[in-house]
């Protein structure tokens, strides 16, 4: 299968939807789609174009531009041995995109990581908790306005420690 065939297959699957082909340095077929139709695009790629595997969900913070976040999905098809990348730009205020965990259940952890690091909500995700940072942390480390040294990295530990000392008394 050549890249041209991938493009034709994807274009056929996305018939009637607006998308823009982007040139990328790695040569992977990349579609830029408006955020309003991204869910339909993902459904079609899953159903009609036959991309069985989600390999990546991540984001790029374009701070201080607005709209601020590029959300990026990458998919793999075993049958056709090809890949596709989907990008969409969303606003920095209360950023959210629809989830794709019902289509590719393996996307669950990637979406949780993306939420953890960028604060992008994946609407409809069954269990959108932080993955790497402690539960209860309120900042998003991979955002560009997150300082290098972190924001209150020890707050949760100190709170836990104070509670422990209060419970155990002076000798703790």
């Amino acid at each position, binding site marked *: 299968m050549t890249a041209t065939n991938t493009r034709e297959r994807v274009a056929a699957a996305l018939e009637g939807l607006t998308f823009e082909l982007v040139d990328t340095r790695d040569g992977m077929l990349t579609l830029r789609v408006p955020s309003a139709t991204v869910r339909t695009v993902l459904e079609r790629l899953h159903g009609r174009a036959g991309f069985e595997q989600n390999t990546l969900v991540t984001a790029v913070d374009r*701070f*201080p531009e607005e709209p601020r976040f590029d959300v990026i999905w990458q998919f793999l098809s075993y049958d056709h041995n090809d890949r596709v990348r989907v990008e969409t730009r969303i606003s920095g205020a209360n950023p959210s995109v629809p989830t794709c965990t019902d289509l590719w259940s393996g996307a669950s952890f990637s979406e949780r990581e993306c939420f953890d690091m960028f604060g992008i909500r994946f609407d409809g995700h069954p269990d959108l908790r932080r993955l790497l*940072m*402690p539960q209860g942390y309120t900042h998003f*480390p991979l955002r*560009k*306005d*997150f*300082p*290098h*040294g*972190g*924001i209150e*990295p*020890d707050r*949760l*530990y100190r709170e*836990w*420690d104070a509670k*422990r000392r209060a419970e155990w008394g*002076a*000798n*703790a």
Partner: protein
Amino acid sequence: MGSLKPADSEGLGFLATRVDELINWGRKNSLWPMPLGLSCCGIELMAMIGPKFDLARFGAEAARFSPRQCDLLVVAGTLTWKMAEAVRVIYDQMPDPKWVIAMGVCSSSGGMYDSYAVVQGVDSILPVDVYVPGCPPRPDAVIDAIIKLQKKIERESPVRRLLKGPGVIDETGTGRNFKQPNFAFDHSSLDLHPHDPKAKIEELQK
């Protein structure tokens, strides 16, 4: 043995100092390490306990994975704030007397990970007896740390500690009355990191 005078034996007499020496001799030659291999340094720790470097020569080869059976916590690796609670619980569960070695620059000072996720030195959450620099330190360096710790244990005064009751310890040992250093390290005093967005944000806010 016998060459070092226990640090605070005044008023307790000759017998107490002899008993101190006996107890210290027993303690220092049978340290049971709790191997807390948090990342790469853990591999060197294993090498140290294994036959080639043979920590058994110093009586500290009985590594146990239950904190209840240990008296030496070796923090070998990068400690993150998320892990810090677990490490503190392990330390609390170890019975007194207990000592801590911070192995490697990561656990001594945060090392190269000047990051939001990493504890900048385990002394932010625990009292540390011996720091071992190196990334990772050679097993010999950690063995040297254990010998230094043995020298430190020689100077402790367990009898006096026993007579004074719990919570009172001699100044040379570690225990419950350490001062907890504050993590609140002022990053603003440093030059801006090249990727630090602070300058850009300030510029935008103008």
